């Protein structure tokens, strides 16, 4: 009996420890604590050990939980680096930078308070500042095993600074991954908090193991029921269009994986009814996590120091804009092997109508320039057929018709297309397959405008700009200003992926912006403890 009881106890302990492990969330650091609308926020995220997703999200929400902007970042070696372009139009106040993974977004999110000032209204109308309360703070441990060699407490402006970061051997062995090293202006009267928002009861979603997943649901417009067995298409128009499809099950849901794209991409999500009179409606899930309930805030009066510091920030950013000084530079996206030929296959014929005489409509173009393509428009009822070359006869079914890579079924869209509208036409004169999709020939029209304006807006078609994996960025190299132009950088050094070594050289130059600065080193130990060391200095 004792044995059984101890086994049970052991089970409970194991289960509880399992849960405890799940509770550790990501940690987020930003280059500064106060920003001005229109600036770029640089961020570094440490991802928990138990992670299996390739993507982590970074977004900005206001005090009411409304999402303002965001990005999806690639996790490498349990860390992610990214940035957010802060909109110009934000009103002054406290905002929260959040980070989370989609599958655990309901369970755990990390958020960090930041202050954003509006360049045009500053702090004139504000006397109180909201601060988050009642959330679990992300614990960090200050370490004295990282030292800065020859680092002063005062530096003149516009002068180079070099120092060596010395990491004790005992610490070096226990550091997990890279370190974040940053040097930035700091506002001593504002010490923002970083918190975890947790809900252990919430269910987990789908893990984004390979890349960003976009999902949604298809419903029948007549019955408002979930539409099963509907093929939903995702097209990313390009010279070689990207294409995916998903056949819905009884839950009406669809999923697409975007694992090979970086940056913003134009996309079209669409579906067609299984019968001509079936009308459907597509709804995409939110790309970013739902805001959930906003945290509680307490109010604090704004100090005079804070007010002065914010005014100085606004001036610096305004002049940066005037002088066109950039904060970050985009790096080339990692090379990924995209398709070498379209999903519908290599064209058996390609026609470029621009090389021939002007033809007024598609009937003429098909007749004169497209071998094996029969487009007829009798009694205003257009029809399209393609030759099945291996069988030497025409397919009875309508071929796959694409405009700029996007499947269309309405032939009325192309009947008026003349030479001026068409850049090229690809034709596949055989029965093609893409996965389980079957195409009785293909006619792919690439338009001269390539703006997809021909596609009719409907509930069955969504045109959207997708923010796929964010392209990496780095802090812009300071452009040596002319003697009359001040260097207005407030972030002097940002190395989010510094490889730990016993001696790490740090070199930067101070800018023309005077004030208090902080050199910060952040890292994570193999046991998950977040560590930091900081050194304050003044630029005079």
């Amino acid at each position, binding site marked *: *009996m004792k044995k*059984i009881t101890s086994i*049970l106890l052991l*089970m*409970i302990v194991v*289960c509880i420890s*399992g849960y405890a492990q799940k509770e550790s969330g990501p940690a987020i650091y930003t280059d500064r604590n106060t920003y001005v609308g229109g600036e770029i926020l640089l961020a570094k995220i440490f991802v928990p050990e138990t992670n299996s997703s390739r993507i982590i999200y970074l977004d900005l929400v206001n005090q009411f939980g409304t999402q303002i902007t965001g990005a999806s970042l690639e996790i490498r070696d349990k860390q992610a680096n990214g940035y957010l372009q802060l909109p110009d139009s934000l009103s002054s106040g406290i905002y929260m930078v959040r980070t989370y993974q989609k*599958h655990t977004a309901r369970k755990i999110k990390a958020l960090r308070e930041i202050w954003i000032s509006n360049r045009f209204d500053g702090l004139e109308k504000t006397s109180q500042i909201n601060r988050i309360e009642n959330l679990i703070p992300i614990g960090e441990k200050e370490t004295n095993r990282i030292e800065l060699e020859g680092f002063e407490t005062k530096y003149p402006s516009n002068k180079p600074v070099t120092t060596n970061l010395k990491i004790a051997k005992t610490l070096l062995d226990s550091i997990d991954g890279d370190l974040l090293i940053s040097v930035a202006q700091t506002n001593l009267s504002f010490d923002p908090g970083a918190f975890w928002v947790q809900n252990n009861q919430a*269910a*987990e*979603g*789908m893990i984004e193991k*390979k890349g960003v*997943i976009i999902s949604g649901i298809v419903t029948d417009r007549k019955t408002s029921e979930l539409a099963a067995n509907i093929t939903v298409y995702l097209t990313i128009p390009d010279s070689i269009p990207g294409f*995916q*499809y*998903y*056949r819905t*099950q*009884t*839950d009406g*849901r669809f*999923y697409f*994986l975007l*694992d090979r794209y970086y940056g913003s991409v134009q996309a079209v999500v669409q579906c067609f009814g299984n019968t001509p009179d079936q009308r459907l409606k597509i709804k995409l899930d939110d790309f970013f996590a739902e805001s959930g309930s906003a945290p509680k805030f307490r109010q604090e009066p704004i100090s005079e120091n804070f007010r002065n510091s914010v005014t100085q920030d606004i001036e610096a950013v305004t002049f940066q804009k005037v002088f066109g000084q950039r904060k970050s530079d985009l790096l080339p996206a990692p090379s990924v*092997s995209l398709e*070498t*030929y379209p*999903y519908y*296959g*290599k064209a058996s014929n390609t026609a470029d109508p621009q090389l021939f005489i002007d033809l007024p409509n598609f009937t003429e173009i098909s007749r004169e320039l497209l071998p094996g393509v029969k487009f007829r428009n009798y009694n205003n009822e257009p029809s399209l057929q393609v030759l099945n070359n*291996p*069988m030497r006869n025409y397919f009875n079914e309508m071929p796959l018709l694409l405009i700029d890579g996007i499947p269309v079924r309405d032939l009325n869209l192309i009947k008026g297309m003349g030479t001026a509208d068409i850049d090229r036409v690809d034709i596949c004169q*055989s*029965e*093609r*397959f*893409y*996965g*389980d*999709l*079957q195409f009785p020939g293909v006619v792919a029209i690439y338009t001269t405008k390539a703006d997809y304006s021909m596609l009719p807006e409907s509930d069955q078609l969504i045109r959207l700009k997708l923010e796929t994996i964010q392209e990496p960025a780095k802090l812009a190299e300071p452009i040596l200003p002319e003697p009359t132009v001040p260097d207005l950088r407030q972030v002097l050094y940002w190395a989010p992926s510094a490889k730990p070594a016993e001696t790490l050289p740090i070199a930067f130059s101070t800018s023309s912006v005077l004030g208090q600065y902080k050199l910060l080193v952040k890292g994570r130990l193999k046991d998950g403890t977040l560590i930091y060391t900081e050194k304050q200095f003044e630029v005079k």
Partner: protein
Amino acid sequence: MNNQIKYLVIILMSCFFASPIAAQETLKENWDAQKIKGARHLPYPSYSGFPFLTDTWLPGKIEFSDGEIADSLFLRYSSYKDELVYFNQTNSAQILIDKASLKGFSFVDQNGISRMFRKQYFDGFIKGDRYFEVLADGETDLLAYRNVELTSTSPYKDESGTLKNMTYTNEYQFYFYSPENGYTLVRLNNNALLSKFKESDQKPIKKILRKSRVRVTGEESLIFAWKIIKKEGFKINF
């Protein structure tokens, strides 16, 4: 008492497994896998001989050009056209997989032997991408090009009594290949194999083969002989 413990264990287990089950979503298997691109395979003209390498569909896997693998496919290699055909169960269609989309494929034959094919550019007569079977790999690979030609033969009557004069004939070719030196054709006999080595190496190789009682008369003995020679450190003289 024992029953109470059992119930307690069941309750505990159900508590801890409940949340992951709730989190699962109804997803199609391999929904995010790369899709196979191809065209419908049309039957070859019926003559004596056999245009395929194997007479049945065999389970195998393909490797896309980006390295992604798709497995549990029913494959058949067309030696006649040097194409890979797979059976799409959803459409009940035989599909010729686009060669441009593949890096290679493998399947387990009727004898349970795993056979691996690799797409490589052939720079000899009739240049282009070909599927080569990898018989032995290493610094220098021993490859087989399982070619079947449609050749004319003396007239014969097929099963339906139609008079025909064409037949599918195996024209397998064997090559030593290294990325630096390219291809060199080898025929299935001792002298042809020996001629692929430096003159100074030929005598010791001959001795080794004699000692190992290997005489190259066919494909298997060629593979065996090459493995022995390779082990001794002799290199092909391209």
